[in-house]
Structures are given as C-alpha cells and as structure tokens.
C-alpha cells in the first residue's frame, strides 16, 4: 500500500513556532533562505546551519514525520555534489584563485579548494532545508494562503495556491484509486515490468486522472462564480491572525540576517569567503 508520509504536510502541534503568525514564518523563511542562497560565506552558513538545526529540535518534530523526505534529500544532495565535482573538478580553484592538491588523479585531481567549495554547497542545504521543512510542518495551509496575500501577492493567486494545497490530498486519493483499479485489471506498474509496459500502465492512470480533474475545474469554478468570487478588488480571510510581539522580533531577526549578508558581501568583495588568499 502507499505510504501517506511520502508527502509533507501540516501537522497540528503546540509550541513557540506553532504560535507564530504564518506571515512571520513565511517572511522569515523567504528572507533567510534567500540570504543562504546568495552568500557562500562559510562563517555565516555555519552559524545559520547550527541555528536552523536548533530550531528544528525546539519544535519537537518526530523523526518518522520526516525520515522519508530526509533520506530522499540526502540522496539527491550527494548526487548533485558528485555531479558538480565530476563536471568541473577545477571549479574550486577558479573561485578561490589558489591551488593546493589533495589527491593527484589527472582530470579528477582533487584540490582543497574544490573540497571547500563542495562543503559550502553542502552547508547551503543544511541551512535552508530545516527552515523550509519546519515551515511546511508547522503552518496551516489556509493560513499560508492568507499570508501570501498579506505580503502583497494578489488574492486570486493566493486563493489558487490555497486551492492547490486543498486538493493535493484529494487528487492523491483519486490517483491511488485509479492505480488500484488498473492493477486489478492486470496492469503491471512495478519495477519488474518492462519500460514500455510501465509507460503504458502509467498512462492508463494519468489519462483518467487528468480528464476527471478537468471536469472538476468546471464544477468548482461554477460554484465559485455563484458565490461572486472575484467581483471585488479585495477579500478577507477567515483564518487571518494579528501579529504579536514575538512576530516582530522574528521578522526583525530575518531583516538583520539579510543585512549581515550584505555586509559580508562588502567585506568579502563578492559572494565567496576566501580563506586561501
């Protein structure tokens, strides 16, 4: 049978992070992950990495909630780092303008600079992934949509995102229902089947799924039209919450972190922190 935990979703809980406003969490996540995306300053990344792991501990999230996705991410991360290395083993020395060889191996000669660059790439994952996972696990989807509207995205787009989050479990259910029905008819979908058979089998699920969902679009849009959706320039949200003191502190912290990245850019003369020169 399929495993429900294969897709991340909100799970109610209690604690400091759950009490924060969804807008605060969204702003914090966007600013901090943007900061981690831009900078390659090792000191900053290490600090944020430790901080985000600490936050994760604080939220009391259970390992089984995230074990699947963490394994998935680690596999992907290792593969990506390997590809970065294989395609251009000299990339590190180009960035840091120096070369100290660790292992001689022709094209694949490994330098300390390359290892340092790969280590920075790895740190970027360690920084941003816990924060994003935390956001997903502790934020109610409806509040998420309301907070998108609050940071200036048009309410129609926010509502579309809310609809998407609302219908992902439904469509997942119909996917598994159709899949079970096709397998009962003898369609083989596992790894044992030949590639061409698997493609055909998957198409047998995808086609009905798409066409029933297209019908769903018509039904839902008629229902929304009857309720006069979209006739006004603004709309309010049932789940919208007001800010409290902690929210301002957290948002302030996010802004400070972005300013630190700007400062580091100026200090390092660019996005890379270079300990070699």
């Amino acid at each position, binding site marked *: 049978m399929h495993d429900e935990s294969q897709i991340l979703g909100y799970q109610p809980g209690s604690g400091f992070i759950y009490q924060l406003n969804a807008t605060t969490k969204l702003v914090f996540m966007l600013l901090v992950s943007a900061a981690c995306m831009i900078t390659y300053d090792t000191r900053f990344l290490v600090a944020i990495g430790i901080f985000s792991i600490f936050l994760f501990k604080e939220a009391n999230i259970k390992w089984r909630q995230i074990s699947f996705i963490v394994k998935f991410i680690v596999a992907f991360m290792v593969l990506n780092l390997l590809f970065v290395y294989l395609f251009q083993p000299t990339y590190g020395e180009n960035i840091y303008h120096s070369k100290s060889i660790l292992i001689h191996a022709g094209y694949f000669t490994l330098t300390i600079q390359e290892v340092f660059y790969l280590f920075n790439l790895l740190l970027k994952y360690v920084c941003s992934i816990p924060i994003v996972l935390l956001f997903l696990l502790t934020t109610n989807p409806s509040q998420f949509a309301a907070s998108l509207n609050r940071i200036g995205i048009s309410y129609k787009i926010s509502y579309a995102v809310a609809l998407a989050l609302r219908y*992902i479990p439904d469509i997942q259910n119909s996917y598994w229902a159709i899949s079970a029905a096709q397998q009962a008819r003898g369609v083989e979908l596992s790894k044992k089947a030949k590639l061409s058979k698997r493609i055909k089998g998957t198409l047998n699920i995808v086609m009905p799924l798409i066409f029933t969902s297209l019908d769903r*679009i018509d039904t839902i849009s008629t229902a*929304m039209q009857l309720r006069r959706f979209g006739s006004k320039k603004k709309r309010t949200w049932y789940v919208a919450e007001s800010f409290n003191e902690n929210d301002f502190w957290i948002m302030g912290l996010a802004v400070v972190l972005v300013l630190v990245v700007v400062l580091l850019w100026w200090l390092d003369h660019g996005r890379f922190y270079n300990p070699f020169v």
Partner: protein
Amino acid sequence: MKTRGLSVKNVVAIGIGSAIYVILARFTSIPTPIPNTNIELVFPFLALLAAIYGAKVGFAVGFIGHALSDFIMYGQTWWSWVLATGIFGLIIGLSSKRLDLKNGIFGIKQIIFFNIVQILANAIAWIAVAPVGDILIYSEPANKVFVQGISATISNGITIMIVGTLLLKAYAGTKIKKGSLRKED
C-alpha cells in the same frame, strides 16, 4: 460578467492544475536505463493545460506547481528551474489561441504546429533560462548545468511529442466540433 485580471475559471484552473502537477511530479516519474534521466509525465500535462487555458494559466501552473512540488518533495526549491517551468508553460500557452482546442480541432496541421512550439519552448526553458539561472543564482559550474539542460530538453521533448500529442488529441475528442450541427433540411 467581465472581471479584470484572472477570471474565476483561470483561478480554479491554476489551483487544481498545480495540485495535479504536484501529484504527477511526485508519482509518475519513470526512470529510464539512461542514468539521471526520467520520463516526466508532468510536462505533457502542463502542455495540455497551457494549450487549453492560455499563457497566464500555463505560467502560473508551471511556477506554482513546480515550486510546491519542490517544497513538498525536497524541502527546497531551485528557483531557476521553477522559473524555467513557468516560462515553458507560458510559451505553450501563447499558442493556445491558434490551436483552438476548445472547438475540438486537432488535425495534422495543429499537431505539427504544437510540436514545433513545444520543442521551442523546451529549448528556451531548459537550455536558456534554467542553466543561466543556475549560474547566476547558485553559481554552479557552467558545463554541468548545460548538460542537464540539454538532456532535459531531449527527454521532455520526446515525452511531449508522444504523450502530449496523445493527450491533446484525446482532449480535442471530448469537445464538440465547431459547425458539426447542421440545420435539418
């Protein structure tokens, strides 16, 4: 009733389309014997949706669907590839007026036109937008990201040529042809 900006139908199409995108991206990626290359059935779907609802919906479903599925599956987003998926939907959506799927017409001429557009859209999205974004945002090595882009173009191009054409044909078949009703003599 005339609404400014997105119509209600477009809003719903973006919402449900993104939800289907997430599910298809998660469950229907079929690995091939070629390493690191998967057959992604989600792109033919995106092409169909863009061809039905147009450029705005195509862009939004690509962008939101890809961003959500990245978030939910990896806990991280590659914004350069998210943007590229959006642009891919946008370009196919631009051709929706000429395709005229809603009137149930999808003959040889339209099939050829659709495939030219989709190959163009693939090339722009994966060979131009995504790698350049990877280099600018993430400063990854250039040859790695271009090889990834070219392999994505080829595998998605072929998948859409076969599955996408089938999907559009099937969709056109469910619509009533323009002028198919005749007045009785």
